[in-house]
């Protein structure tokens, strides 16, 4: 999304995901620029249809996890051997088997929290965020495509609308947001 968000949109609504996916492919083939696509559930094949890049969230997760592993092992080693070595029941001061459970837990903890926070930041989700609702039914049973109408001429808008209808959209409408109305 651009840094300055447009306020004027055309919204096309579909009621069946297969038709929807075909529509996207055809529209993109025609060179129509899709501003956003909203679905009530994750639609398989949508990423490819929209030509989105693979998310790098996994990689981030791996690095978060690795951080947790390293931190856990090095901290416990430091405490038990350097900072405050104590004899517990005759156990070695570097009891590696004892470290494994906590190391594992911290790996998971770091990976999970790191990924989730990254996910929220990247998706711009936070409590109190006011989202732009293009159509209420996009979280229910409608698949929407949003086109940026601000920079388009009326003719272009109409052609998009026509194309949508041709591709099986059940509804096509204009949507205008005021400046203050959400992201």
């Amino acid at each position, binding site marked *: 999304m651009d840094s300055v968000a447009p306020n004027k949109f055309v919204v096309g609504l579909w009621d069946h995901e297969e038709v929807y996916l075909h529509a996207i492919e055809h529209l993109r083939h025609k060179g129509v620029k899709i501003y956003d696509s909203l679905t009530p559930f994750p639609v*398989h094949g949508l990423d490819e249809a929209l030509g989105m890049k693979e998310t790098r969230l996994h990689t981030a997760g791996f690095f978060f996890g690795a951080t947790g592993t390293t931190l856990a092992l090095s901290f416990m080693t430091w405490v038990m051997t350097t900072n405050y070595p104590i004899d517990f029941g*005759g156990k070695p001061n570097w009891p590696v*088997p*004892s470290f*494994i459970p906590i190391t594992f837990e911290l790996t998971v903890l770091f990976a999970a929290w790191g990924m989730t926070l990254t996910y929220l930041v990247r998706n711009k989700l936070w409590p109190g965020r006011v989202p732009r609702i293009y159509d209420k039914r996009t979280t229910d049973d409608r698949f929407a495509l949003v086109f940026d109408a601000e920079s388009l001429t009326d003719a272009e808008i109409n052609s998009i609308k026509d194309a949508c209808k041709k591709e099986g959209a059940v509804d096509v409408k204009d949507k205008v947001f005021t400046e203050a109305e959400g992201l």
Partner: protein
Amino acid sequence: MTNEKFEFTDSLKKNLYIMMGLGLLGLVWVFLGDHESNHHGRLWSNLLANSYYFTGIALFGMFVVSATQLAYGGWQTLMKRIFISMSAFARIGGFLLLLILAAGIADVHKLYEHVSHIMHTGHGDPKYSTKLVYFASWFWIGRVFVYALLWATFSIVFDRFFGEADQSSQAKYKKSKLLAAAFIVVFAVSESAVSWDMIMSLDPHWFSTLFGWYNFASYGCAAWATSILIIIYLKSKGYLNQVNENHVHDLGKMLFGFSIFWTYLWFSQFMLQWYANIPEDTNFWVKRFDEPYFKVTIFGALIVNFLFPLFFLIKRSAKRNFKMIGFGAALLIFGHYVDFFNYTFVEPNWNHEAMEHGHGAAVKSENVVMLAEAHATEAAHGAAATDAVKHEGHEASAAVEVKHGEHGVESKHGHEAPVKNFASIGIGEILVFIGFAGLFLFMFFSNLSKRNIVPEDDPYLKESEKLNVTWA
């Protein structure tokens, strides 16, 4: 193209004969290379390790079929008969074990020497009272015979049942579930029991409740890896065209999962015994950690069987590339073989009998001296006083001191001290392994060549063909 039949070519046969020949050569090798006083322990422990390992793989083949059948699995249908043919070895594996056991009881070799030692002299020691019952010869042999019989029967029944045409009928399908459930029950009991009877009994002092599961995980890994290698081979020969990287990917996932499961069990077993540090548990580990060779192979096997899958098999690309997954599968088969061979209880024990005698003599003759010498805390104290620094860095322990004491006593009493009390993996071992692999494959291929590789009328075939592994 579903109606394809495997053709067991002469050249393949020839190759397998060569492998088996190499195995025989290996047996001769270990036989000759063996120290006389060890009662050919090396030969027999090679036989035991390989028989057990390959029987486990064979049984696991049936387990896979049963489990997927029960769980309405569809993805494996194309490969179903691969697993069934893998189980062909189970028809002889159990009897090989029976042979080894019978030979042991008949005193041909000394693998189970300390058990028979207990049977002869252990009546006084209450610790052995239950073993007198459990290892009574007829009971012991009888048990293994029952397992062998059950496995062979199931292998034949599975082969017939799933090999027949017309898999699609409702009645047949229902019956297959019953068969699968029956096998799972038999398998669950017999695989645990055989791990106690054949492997855990090598060291009659030691016990671990986890042991059966651990064995299961170990040859489970090996079985998945074997199936991957076989499928890659068959595809290279032009069979199994519908099997694609999606199927191999799924097998790779199972291999990965079982590797992690195996590690989990390895860790659980080791950690708990390490933590409690009760001698009845730890004598097992101390015995092995005393030998640097086993230290290397134990942790080496851990690296191969855990770290390698963790970093290598976790990747989607690795699981979908035949060359890479093939390499991984081969490595894991080897890793678990090493695990079984060295670490899992077979080899380290094979001349333990000599050490046992050393023990007995020491206790009987010089009670007082032993008490003074073997007092762990005392001994460790002495060591600590002489070289405290050494102790910090090493796993040196009271145990080491005690051990040295024993060896001293042993040689003093004129027992023939073994040149080395373990066998490392040498050429002989590798040759025997190859031989067993040849036998396994020979049985596999001759079974596979009997009918279509793909069960063409299985109701789930379509699902298997359409398999598309999206994630991970």
